[in-house]
Protein backbone atom coordinates (compact mmCIF):
# COMPACT_ATOMS: atom_id res chain seq x y z
CA UNK A 1 0.00 0.00 0.00
CA UNK A 2 1.49 3.20 -1.04
CA UNK A 3 -0.39 5.22 1.46
CA UNK A 4 1.30 5.92 4.65
CA UNK A 5 0.09 4.91 8.04
CA UNK A 6 -2.69 7.36 8.55
CA UNK A 7 -4.22 6.94 5.23
CA UNK A 8 -4.05 3.25 5.65
CA UNK A 9 -5.93 3.41 8.87
CA UNK A 10 -8.57 5.45 7.28
CA UNK A 11 -8.63 3.12 4.40
CA UNK A 12 -9.23 0.30 6.79
CA UNK A 13 -12.06 2.17 8.32
CA UNK A 14 -13.53 2.90 5.01
CA UNK A 15 -13.22 -0.64 3.92
CA UNK A 16 -16.08 -1.36 6.14
CA UNK A 17 -18.24 0.82 4.00
CA UNK A 18 -17.38 0.84 0.41
CA UNK A 19 -14.31 0.32 -1.54
CA UNK A 20 -14.85 2.94 -4.00
CA UNK A 21 -15.72 5.35 -1.37
CA UNK A 22 -12.66 4.27 0.50
CA UNK A 23 -10.49 5.30 -2.26
CA UNK A 24 -12.58 8.27 -2.84
CA UNK A 25 -12.36 9.26 0.71
CA UNK A 26 -8.73 8.58 0.83
CA UNK A 27 -8.27 10.96 -1.93
CA UNK A 28 -10.57 13.39 -0.31
CA UNK A 29 -8.78 13.08 2.91
CA UNK A 30 -5.49 13.29 1.25
CA UNK A 31 -6.56 16.41 -0.33
CA UNK A 32 -7.92 17.59 2.91
CA UNK A 33 -4.76 16.87 4.60
CA UNK A 34 -2.89 18.23 1.78
CA UNK A 35 -2.24 21.47 3.36
CA UNK A 36 -1.54 19.80 6.63
CA UNK A 37 0.49 17.00 5.34
CA UNK A 38 1.86 17.76 2.02
CA UNK A 39 3.39 14.39 1.90
CA UNK A 40 0.07 12.78 1.61
CA UNK A 41 -0.93 14.65 -1.34
CA UNK A 42 2.23 14.02 -3.09
CA UNK A 43 1.69 10.43 -2.43
CA UNK A 44 -1.70 10.55 -3.83
CA UNK A 45 -0.63 12.46 -6.80
CA UNK A 46 2.02 9.99 -7.54
CA UNK A 47 -0.48 7.27 -7.44
CA UNK A 48 -0.80 6.39 -10.98
CA UNK A 49 -3.28 4.23 -12.64
CA UNK A 50 -1.34 1.11 -12.19
CA UNK A 51 -0.93 1.49 -8.54
CA UNK A 52 -4.44 2.45 -7.96
CA UNK A 53 -5.56 -0.39 -9.95
CA UNK A 54 -3.39 -2.63 -7.99
CA UNK A 55 -4.93 -1.33 -4.88
CA UNK A 56 -8.34 -1.61 -6.25
CA UNK A 57 -7.69 -5.02 -7.49
CA UNK A 58 -6.51 -6.18 -4.15
CA UNK A 59 -9.28 -4.38 -2.42
CA UNK A 60 -11.71 -5.88 -4.80
CA UNK A 61 -10.32 -9.27 -4.20
CA UNK A 62 -10.75 -8.82 -0.57
CA UNK A 63 -14.20 -7.58 -0.99
CA UNK A 64 -15.78 -10.84 -1.91
CA UNK A 65 -14.64 -12.20 1.33
CA UNK A 66 -15.96 -9.32 3.24
CA UNK A 67 -19.19 -8.75 1.50
CA UNK A 68 -21.39 -11.71 1.34
CA UNK A 69 -23.54 -10.80 -1.55
CA UNK A 70 -21.47 -10.04 -4.48
CA UNK A 71 -22.57 -10.12 -7.96
CA UNK A 72 -21.51 -11.86 -11.02
CA UNK A 73 -19.58 -8.97 -12.17
CA UNK A 74 -16.99 -8.80 -9.58
CA UNK A 75 -14.60 -11.51 -10.47
CA UNK A 76 -15.14 -10.91 -14.07
CA UNK A 77 -13.98 -7.46 -13.60
CA UNK A 78 -11.06 -8.36 -11.51
CA UNK A 79 -9.67 -10.99 -13.66
CA UNK A 80 -9.83 -8.74 -16.60
CA UNK A 81 -8.22 -5.88 -14.87
CA UNK A 82 -5.83 -4.17 -17.06
CA UNK A 83 -5.43 -1.32 -14.76
CA UNK A 84 -8.55 -0.09 -16.36
CA UNK A 85 -10.61 1.66 -13.88
CA UNK A 86 -13.79 1.09 -15.76
CA UNK A 87 -13.60 -2.60 -15.32
CA UNK A 88 -12.82 -2.32 -11.73
CA UNK A 89 -15.53 0.08 -11.13
CA UNK A 90 -17.74 -2.54 -12.58
CA UNK A 91 -16.68 -4.69 -9.70
CA UNK A 92 -18.09 -2.52 -7.18
CA UNK A 93 -20.90 -1.25 -9.13
CA UNK A 94 -23.40 -3.66 -7.88
CA UNK A 95 -22.12 -4.44 -4.52
CA UNK A 96 -24.69 -3.98 -1.93
CA UNK A 97 -23.42 -1.69 0.62
CA UNK A 98 -26.75 -0.26 1.29
CA UNK A 99 -26.15 2.48 -1.15
CA UNK A 100 -25.90 1.02 -4.51
CA UNK A 101 -26.25 4.32 -6.07
CA UNK A 102 -23.48 5.69 -4.13
CA UNK A 103 -21.28 2.96 -5.29
CA UNK A 104 -22.11 3.63 -8.80
CA UNK A 105 -21.40 7.19 -8.32
CA UNK A 106 -18.25 6.43 -6.53
CA UNK A 107 -17.42 4.09 -9.29
CA UNK A 108 -17.89 6.78 -11.72
CA UNK A 109 -16.04 9.12 -9.61
CA UNK A 110 -13.17 6.79 -9.59
CA UNK A 111 -13.20 6.59 -13.23
CA UNK A 112 -13.37 10.23 -13.53
CA UNK A 113 -10.61 10.56 -11.10
CA UNK A 114 -8.32 8.45 -13.04
CA UNK A 115 -9.00 10.13 -16.21
CA UNK A 116 -9.39 13.62 -15.11
CA UNK A 117 -7.33 13.88 -12.10
CA UNK A 118 -7.40 17.57 -11.85
CA UNK A 119 -11.09 17.70 -12.16
CA UNK A 120 -11.44 15.07 -9.56
CA UNK A 121 -9.24 16.87 -7.23
CA UNK A 122 -11.41 19.85 -7.62
CA UNK A 123 -14.45 17.84 -6.90
CA UNK A 124 -12.87 16.27 -3.97
CA UNK A 125 -12.07 19.60 -2.62
CA UNK A 126 -15.59 20.56 -3.18
CA UNK A 127 -16.86 17.86 -1.06
CA UNK A 128 -14.12 18.31 1.38
CA UNK A 129 -16.55 19.51 3.92
CA UNK A 130 -18.90 16.57 3.77
CA UNK A 131 -17.24 13.28 3.59
CA UNK A 132 -20.15 10.99 3.71
CA UNK A 133 -21.55 8.64 1.20
CA UNK A 134 -24.60 10.71 0.70
CA UNK A 135 -22.67 13.81 0.10
CA UNK A 136 -20.49 12.07 -2.33
CA UNK A 137 -23.50 11.01 -4.12
CA UNK A 138 -25.03 14.38 -4.20
CA UNK A 139 -22.07 16.19 -5.43
CA UNK A 140 -20.95 13.78 -7.93
CA UNK A 141 -24.33 12.91 -9.13
CA UNK A 142 -24.68 15.77 -11.45
CA UNK A 143 -21.39 15.37 -13.05
CA UNK A 144 -21.29 11.66 -13.13
CA UNK A 145 -24.79 10.92 -14.11
CA UNK A 146 -24.03 10.68 -17.75
CA UNK A 147 -21.04 8.60 -17.18
CA UNK A 148 -22.88 6.30 -14.87
CA UNK A 149 -25.09 4.85 -17.48
CA UNK A 150 -22.29 4.41 -19.90
CA UNK A 151 -20.28 2.69 -17.35
CA UNK A 152 -23.08 0.43 -16.37
CA UNK A 153 -23.46 -0.61 -19.90
CA UNK A 154 -19.82 -1.17 -20.37
CA UNK A 155 -19.60 -3.04 -17.16
CA UNK A 156 -22.40 -5.28 -18.03
CA UNK A 157 -21.17 -5.95 -21.47
CA UNK A 158 -17.50 -6.24 -20.85
CA UNK A 159 -16.40 -9.38 -19.29
CA UNK A 160 -13.47 -11.56 -18.81
CA UNK A 161 -12.76 -14.84 -20.44
CA UNK A 162 -14.88 -17.84 -19.89
CA UNK A 163 -14.66 -19.45 -16.55
CA UNK A 164 -17.34 -21.07 -14.53
CA UNK A 165 -16.82 -20.37 -10.95
CA UNK A 166 -19.11 -20.24 -8.00
CA UNK A 167 -18.95 -17.36 -5.67
CA UNK A 168 -19.81 -17.39 -2.11
CA UNK A 169 -23.49 -16.81 -2.28
CA UNK A 170 -26.18 -19.39 -2.03
CA UNK A 171 -26.62 -19.66 -5.71
CA UNK A 172 -24.12 -20.51 -8.32
CA UNK A 173 -22.55 -17.66 -10.11
CA UNK A 174 -21.31 -18.15 -13.53
CA UNK A 175 -18.70 -16.08 -15.14
CA UNK A 176 -19.89 -14.45 -18.21
CA UNK A 177 -18.45 -15.17 -21.53
CA UNK A 178 -16.89 -12.48 -23.51
CA UNK A 179 -19.38 -10.25 -25.08
CA UNK A 180 -22.38 -11.75 -23.40
CA UNK A 181 -24.73 -10.21 -20.96
CA UNK A 182 -24.12 -10.98 -17.40
CA UNK A 183 -27.26 -10.24 -15.54
CA UNK A 184 -28.71 -13.02 -13.56
CA UNK A 185 -31.54 -13.67 -15.91
CA UNK A 186 -29.43 -14.31 -18.91
CA UNK A 187 -27.10 -16.46 -16.94
CA UNK A 188 -29.96 -18.61 -15.82
CA UNK A 189 -31.27 -18.61 -19.32
CA UNK A 190 -27.94 -19.72 -20.65
CA UNK A 191 -27.66 -22.51 -18.13
CA UNK A 192 -31.09 -23.66 -19.10
CA UNK A 193 -30.21 -23.61 -22.75
CA UNK A 194 -27.12 -25.63 -22.12
CA UNK A 195 -29.14 -28.20 -20.26
CA UNK A 196 -31.48 -28.43 -23.15
CA UNK A 197 -28.74 -28.89 -25.68
CA UNK A 198 -27.23 -31.56 -23.48
CA UNK A 199 -30.48 -33.44 -23.58
CA UNK A 200 -30.74 -32.94 -27.28
CA UNK A 201 -27.35 -34.54 -27.73
CA UNK A 202 -28.43 -37.51 -25.70
CA UNK A 203 -31.51 -37.83 -27.81
CA UNK A 204 -29.39 -37.65 -30.88
CA UNK A 205 -27.63 -40.79 -29.79
CA UNK A 206 -30.88 -42.45 -29.02
CA UNK A 207 -32.68 -41.80 -32.25
CA UNK A 208 -31.15 -43.66 -35.14
CA UNK A 209 -29.95 -41.68 -38.06
CA UNK A 210 -29.55 -38.42 -36.31
CA UNK A 211 -25.84 -38.11 -36.52
CA UNK A 212 -25.82 -35.94 -39.54
CA UNK A 213 -28.50 -33.63 -38.45
CA UNK A 214 -27.46 -30.49 -36.76
CA UNK A 215 -29.69 -27.89 -35.34
CA UNK A 216 -32.46 -28.10 -32.87
CA UNK A 217 -35.29 -27.92 -35.33
CA UNK A 218 -34.08 -30.78 -37.46
CA UNK A 219 -33.34 -32.89 -34.44
CA UNK A 220 -36.72 -32.25 -32.99
CA UNK A 221 -38.31 -33.18 -36.27
CA UNK A 222 -36.46 -36.44 -36.29
CA UNK A 223 -37.37 -37.19 -32.73
CA UNK A 224 -40.99 -36.49 -33.37
CA UNK A 225 -41.00 -38.71 -36.39
CA UNK A 226 -39.27 -41.47 -34.54
CA UNK A 227 -41.60 -41.38 -31.59
CA UNK A 228 -44.57 -41.36 -33.90
CA UNK A 229 -43.25 -44.28 -35.85
CA UNK A 230 -42.60 -46.23 -32.68
CA UNK A 231 -46.08 -45.58 -31.48
CA UNK A 232 -47.51 -46.63 -34.81
CA UNK A 233 -45.46 -49.78 -34.66
CA UNK A 234 -46.84 -50.58 -31.26
CA UNK A 235 -50.31 -50.01 -32.49
CA UNK A 236 -49.77 -52.20 -35.49
CA UNK A 237 -48.33 -54.95 -33.40
CA UNK A 238 -51.16 -54.77 -30.96
CA UNK A 239 -53.57 -55.06 -33.86
CA UNK A 240 -51.75 -58.09 -34.98
CA UNK A 241 -51.79 -59.40 -31.49
CA UNK A 242 -55.51 -58.94 -31.34
CA UNK A 243 -55.95 -61.10 -34.36
CA UNK A 244 -53.78 -63.86 -33.04
CA UNK A 245 -54.70 -63.65 -29.42
CA UNK A 246 -57.15 -66.54 -29.46
CA UNK A 247 -54.17 -68.71 -30.01
CA UNK A 248 -52.30 -67.29 -27.11
CA UNK A 249 -53.21 -69.97 -24.65
CA UNK A 250 -50.64 -72.59 -24.84
CA UNK A 251 -47.90 -70.37 -25.93
CA UNK A 252 -48.10 -67.87 -23.19
CA UNK A 253 -46.09 -69.83 -20.78
CA UNK A 254 -43.49 -70.38 -23.37
CA UNK A 255 -43.32 -66.73 -23.87
CA UNK A 256 -42.90 -66.21 -20.23
CA UNK A 257 -39.93 -68.39 -20.08
CA UNK A 258 -38.49 -67.00 -23.20
CA UNK A 259 -38.82 -63.52 -21.98
CA UNK A 260 -37.72 -64.40 -18.58
CA UNK A 261 -34.84 -66.53 -19.56
CA UNK A 262 -31.95 -64.30 -19.99
CA UNK A 263 -29.58 -65.61 -17.45
CA UNK A 264 -29.07 -68.76 -15.53
CA UNK A 265 -31.27 -67.62 -12.71
CA UNK A 266 -34.61 -67.81 -14.26
CA UNK A 267 -37.63 -65.99 -13.22
CA UNK A 268 -39.58 -69.12 -12.86
CA UNK A 269 -42.33 -68.26 -10.45
CA UNK A 270 -43.67 -66.11 -13.20
CA UNK A 271 -43.94 -68.92 -15.55
CA UNK A 272 -45.09 -71.39 -13.04
CA UNK A 273 -47.94 -69.43 -11.63
CA UNK A 274 -51.12 -69.77 -13.55
CA UNK A 275 -51.67 -66.65 -15.51
CA UNK A 276 -55.08 -65.92 -14.22
CA UNK A 277 -53.76 -65.60 -10.77
CA UNK A 278 -51.45 -62.92 -11.81
CA UNK A 279 -53.78 -60.75 -13.73
CA UNK A 280 -55.96 -59.28 -11.06
CA UNK A 281 -53.83 -59.70 -8.10
CA UNK A 282 -52.20 -56.35 -8.26
CA UNK A 283 -49.20 -58.38 -8.96
CA UNK A 284 -46.28 -56.52 -7.56
CA UNK A 285 -43.40 -55.88 -9.79
CA UNK A 286 -41.03 -57.08 -7.21
CA UNK A 287 -42.28 -60.56 -7.38
CA UNK A 288 -41.91 -60.57 -11.06
CA UNK A 289 -38.36 -59.60 -11.02
CA UNK A 290 -36.96 -60.94 -7.88
CA UNK A 291 -38.62 -64.24 -7.64
CA UNK A 292 -36.09 -66.72 -8.73
CA UNK A 293 -36.24 -70.35 -8.22
CA UNK A 294 -33.53 -72.75 -8.81
CA UNK A 295 -34.89 -75.13 -11.32
CA UNK A 296 -32.21 -77.34 -12.53
CA UNK A 297 -33.89 -78.57 -15.67
CA UNK A 298 -34.47 -75.07 -16.75
CA UNK A 299 -30.99 -74.12 -16.01
CA UNK A 300 -29.76 -76.76 -18.25
CA UNK A 301 -31.95 -75.50 -20.95
CA UNK A 302 -31.12 -71.95 -20.42
CA UNK A 303 -28.41 -70.31 -22.29
CA UNK A 304 -27.44 -67.13 -20.70
CA UNK A 305 -28.02 -64.36 -23.04
CA UNK A 306 -29.45 -60.93 -23.06
CA UNK A 307 -33.17 -60.87 -23.56
CA UNK A 308 -32.99 -58.50 -26.41
CA UNK A 309 -31.00 -60.74 -28.66
CA UNK A 310 -33.36 -63.38 -27.51
CA UNK A 311 -36.20 -61.44 -28.96
CA UNK A 312 -34.51 -60.61 -32.13
CA UNK A 313 -33.33 -64.07 -32.70
CA UNK A 314 -36.29 -66.31 -32.87
CA UNK A 315 -34.24 -69.42 -33.24
CA UNK A 316 -32.71 -69.21 -29.84
CA UNK A 317 -36.06 -69.12 -28.16
CA UNK A 318 -37.54 -71.91 -30.13
CA UNK A 319 -34.90 -74.24 -28.81
CA UNK A 320 -36.43 -74.08 -25.41
CA UNK A 321 -39.95 -74.68 -26.48
CA UNK A 322 -40.10 -78.35 -26.14
CA UNK A 323 -38.25 -78.45 -22.89
CA UNK A 324 -40.38 -75.75 -21.47
CA UNK A 325 -43.56 -77.41 -22.48
CA UNK A 326 -42.41 -80.60 -20.93
CA UNK A 327 -41.66 -78.83 -17.76
CA UNK A 328 -45.01 -77.20 -17.65
CA UNK A 329 -46.89 -80.31 -18.32
CA UNK A 330 -45.01 -81.92 -15.51
CA UNK A 331 -45.91 -79.07 -13.27
CA UNK A 332 -49.49 -79.42 -14.17
CA UNK A 333 -49.90 -75.86 -15.25
Amino acid at each position, binding site marked *: MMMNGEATTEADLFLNCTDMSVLERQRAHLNNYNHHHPGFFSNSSTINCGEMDGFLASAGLDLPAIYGDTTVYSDARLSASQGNITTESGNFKKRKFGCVETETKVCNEKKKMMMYREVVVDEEEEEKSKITEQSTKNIMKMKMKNKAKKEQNSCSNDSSKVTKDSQKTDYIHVRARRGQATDSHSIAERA*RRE*KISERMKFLQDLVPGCDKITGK*AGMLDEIINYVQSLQRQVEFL*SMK*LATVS*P*RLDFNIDD*LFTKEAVSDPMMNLPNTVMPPHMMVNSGYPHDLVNS*GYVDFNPMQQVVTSSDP*LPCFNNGQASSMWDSDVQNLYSSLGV
Partner: protein
Amino acid sequence: MERQIISKKKQVFSVEPTKLSPSEVFTRKYTSHLVPALKKLNMDKNSSQINQVTVKHEVDMALALSAQEFAWGRFLLQKLSSADSKSSSSNQTQILERSNDEDGEIEEKMKELQELLPGGKEMNVEEMLSEIGNYIKYLELQTSALKTIVQDTT
Protein backbone atom coordinates in the same frame (compact mmCIF):
# COMPACT_ATOMS: atom_id res chain seq x y z
CA MET B 1 -42.31 -77.01 -4.02
CA GLU B 2 -44.28 -76.17 -7.08
CA ARG B 3 -47.37 -75.67 -5.03
CA GLN B 4 -45.50 -73.41 -2.78
CA ILE B 5 -44.50 -71.36 -5.68
CA ILE B 6 -47.94 -71.32 -7.15
CA SER B 7 -49.72 -70.35 -4.03
CA LYS B 8 -47.15 -68.03 -2.76
CA LYS B 9 -47.64 -64.48 -3.64
CA LYS B 10 -45.05 -62.94 -1.55
CA GLN B 11 -41.55 -62.30 -2.62
CA VAL B 12 -39.30 -65.09 -3.43
CA PHE B 13 -35.75 -64.16 -3.36
CA SER B 14 -33.25 -65.57 -5.66
CA VAL B 15 -30.60 -67.88 -4.47
CA GLU B 16 -28.08 -65.81 -6.24
CA PRO B 17 -28.82 -62.21 -6.83
CA THR B 18 -28.63 -61.30 -10.43
CA LYS B 19 -28.04 -57.91 -11.79
CA LEU B 20 -30.50 -57.10 -14.44
CA SER B 21 -30.19 -54.30 -16.85
CA PRO B 22 -33.12 -51.94 -16.96
CA SER B 23 -34.14 -53.23 -20.34
CA GLU B 24 -34.28 -56.76 -19.02
CA VAL B 25 -36.21 -55.65 -16.03
CA PHE B 26 -38.63 -53.80 -18.15
CA THR B 27 -39.10 -56.62 -20.57
CA ARG B 28 -39.89 -59.04 -17.84
CA LYS B 29 -42.27 -56.69 -16.21
CA TYR B 30 -43.90 -55.92 -19.43
CA THR B 31 -44.49 -59.42 -20.56
CA SER B 32 -45.60 -60.46 -17.14
CA HIS B 33 -48.26 -57.84 -17.31
CA LEU B 34 -49.29 -58.16 -20.86
CA VAL B 35 -49.43 -61.84 -21.43
CA PRO B 36 -51.64 -62.71 -18.50
CA ALA B 37 -53.85 -59.80 -19.35
CA LEU B 38 -54.21 -61.06 -22.85
CA LYS B 39 -54.89 -64.50 -21.64
CA LYS B 40 -57.52 -63.18 -19.34
CA LEU B 41 -59.04 -61.35 -22.21
CA ASN B 42 -59.11 -64.57 -24.06
CA MET B 43 -60.69 -66.42 -21.26
CA ASP B 44 -63.23 -63.78 -20.47
CA LYS B 45 -64.38 -62.90 -23.87
CA ASN B 46 -64.12 -66.41 -25.01
CA SER B 47 -62.92 -65.55 -28.44
CA SER B 48 -65.92 -63.45 -29.11
CA GLN B 49 -64.76 -59.97 -29.59
CA ILE B 50 -61.22 -59.36 -28.84
CA ASN B 51 -61.16 -56.09 -30.53
CA GLN B 52 -58.15 -54.05 -31.09
CA VAL B 53 -59.07 -51.37 -28.68
CA THR B 54 -59.00 -53.60 -25.70
CA VAL B 55 -55.82 -55.21 -26.82
CA LYS B 56 -54.27 -51.84 -27.33
CA HIS B 57 -55.51 -50.91 -23.94
CA GLU B 58 -53.81 -53.87 -22.41
CA VAL B 59 -50.69 -53.16 -24.35
CA ASP B 60 -50.57 -49.63 -23.09
CA MET B 61 -51.46 -50.73 -19.62
CA ALA B 62 -48.62 -53.17 -19.58
CA LEU B 63 -46.27 -50.44 -20.66
CA ALA B 64 -47.55 -48.10 -18.03
CA LEU B 65 -47.26 -50.66 -15.29
CA SER B 66 -43.76 -51.54 -16.28
CA ALA B 67 -42.56 -48.00 -16.41
CA GLN B 68 -43.82 -46.62 -13.17
CA GLU B 69 -40.52 -45.04 -12.38
CA PHE B 70 -41.08 -42.50 -15.06
CA ALA B 71 -43.46 -39.64 -15.02
CA TRP B 72 -44.88 -40.60 -18.35
CA GLY B 73 -45.52 -44.10 -17.15
CA ARG B 74 -47.45 -42.89 -14.17
CA PHE B 75 -49.38 -40.48 -16.27
CA LEU B 76 -50.19 -43.14 -18.79
CA LEU B 77 -51.43 -45.41 -16.06
CA GLN B 78 -53.64 -42.69 -14.72
CA LYS B 79 -55.02 -41.99 -18.10
CA LEU B 80 -55.71 -45.61 -18.80
CA SER B 81 -57.29 -46.34 -15.48
CA SER B 82 -59.58 -43.41 -15.59
CA ALA B 83 -60.94 -44.05 -19.03
CA ASP B 84 -62.48 -47.28 -20.15
CA SER B 85 -62.09 -47.18 -23.82
CA LYS B 86 -59.30 -45.13 -25.08
CA SER B 87 -59.03 -43.87 -28.55
CA SER B 88 -55.47 -43.95 -29.53
CA SER B 89 -54.64 -40.40 -28.89
CA SER B 90 -51.00 -41.02 -29.01
CA ASN B 91 -50.89 -40.81 -32.73
CA GLN B 92 -52.79 -37.65 -33.13
CA THR B 93 -51.01 -35.30 -35.33
CA GLN B 94 -51.83 -31.75 -34.99
CA ILE B 95 -51.42 -29.17 -37.57
CA LEU B 96 -49.53 -26.51 -35.84
CA GLU B 97 -48.82 -23.10 -37.03
CA ARG B 98 -45.34 -22.84 -38.21
CA SER B 99 -44.00 -19.46 -37.60
CA ASN B 100 -41.10 -18.27 -39.57
CA ASP B 101 -39.19 -17.36 -36.54
CA GLU B 102 -36.80 -20.12 -35.71
CA ASP B 103 -37.47 -19.99 -32.06
CA GLY B 104 -41.13 -20.18 -32.75
CA GLU B 105 -40.60 -23.23 -34.90
CA ILE B 106 -38.69 -24.93 -32.20
CA GLU B 107 -41.37 -24.02 -29.74
CA GLU B 108 -43.95 -25.58 -31.95
CA LYS B 109 -41.96 -28.75 -32.26
CA MET B 110 -41.49 -28.94 -28.56
CA LYS B 111 -45.19 -28.67 -28.15
CA GLU B 112 -45.70 -31.43 -30.62
CA LEU B 113 -43.33 -33.62 -28.71
CA GLN B 114 -45.20 -32.83 -25.59
CA GLU B 115 -48.35 -34.07 -27.21
CA LEU B 116 -46.69 -37.32 -28.10
CA LEU B 117 -45.37 -37.99 -24.67
CA PRO B 118 -47.99 -39.05 -22.18
CA GLY B 119 -48.13 -36.41 -19.57
CA GLY B 120 -45.83 -34.22 -21.53
CA LYS B 121 -48.06 -31.25 -21.37
CA GLU B 122 -47.54 -30.86 -17.70
CA MET B 123 -43.81 -30.91 -17.94
CA ASN B 124 -41.45 -28.17 -18.71
CA VAL B 125 -39.15 -28.42 -21.64
CA GLU B 126 -36.06 -29.85 -20.02
CA GLU B 127 -38.00 -32.43 -18.09
CA MET B 128 -39.80 -33.40 -21.20
CA LEU B 129 -36.65 -33.89 -23.15
CA SER B 130 -35.26 -36.35 -20.67
CA GLU B 131 -38.55 -38.15 -20.36
CA ILE B 132 -38.78 -38.41 -24.10
CA GLY B 133 -35.39 -40.07 -24.05
CA ASN B 134 -36.46 -42.94 -21.90
CA TYR B 135 -39.90 -43.04 -23.44
CA ILE B 136 -38.26 -43.76 -26.77
CA LYS B 137 -36.11 -46.45 -25.26
CA TYR B 138 -39.02 -48.13 -23.59
CA LEU B 139 -41.16 -47.90 -26.67
CA GLU B 140 -38.44 -49.76 -28.49
CA LEU B 141 -38.39 -52.41 -25.82
CA GLN B 142 -42.12 -52.69 -25.95
CA THR B 143 -42.01 -53.06 -29.69
CA SER B 144 -39.56 -55.88 -29.55
CA ALA B 145 -41.51 -57.59 -26.79
CA LEU B 146 -44.67 -57.37 -28.81
CA LYS B 147 -42.90 -58.66 -31.85
CA THR B 148 -41.76 -61.70 -29.98
CA ILE B 149 -45.17 -62.34 -28.62
CA VAL B 150 -46.77 -62.03 -31.99
CA GLN B 151 -44.13 -64.08 -33.67
CA ASP B 152 -44.52 -66.88 -31.29
CA THR B 153 -48.20 -67.05 -31.49
CA THR B 154 -48.44 -67.07 -35.24
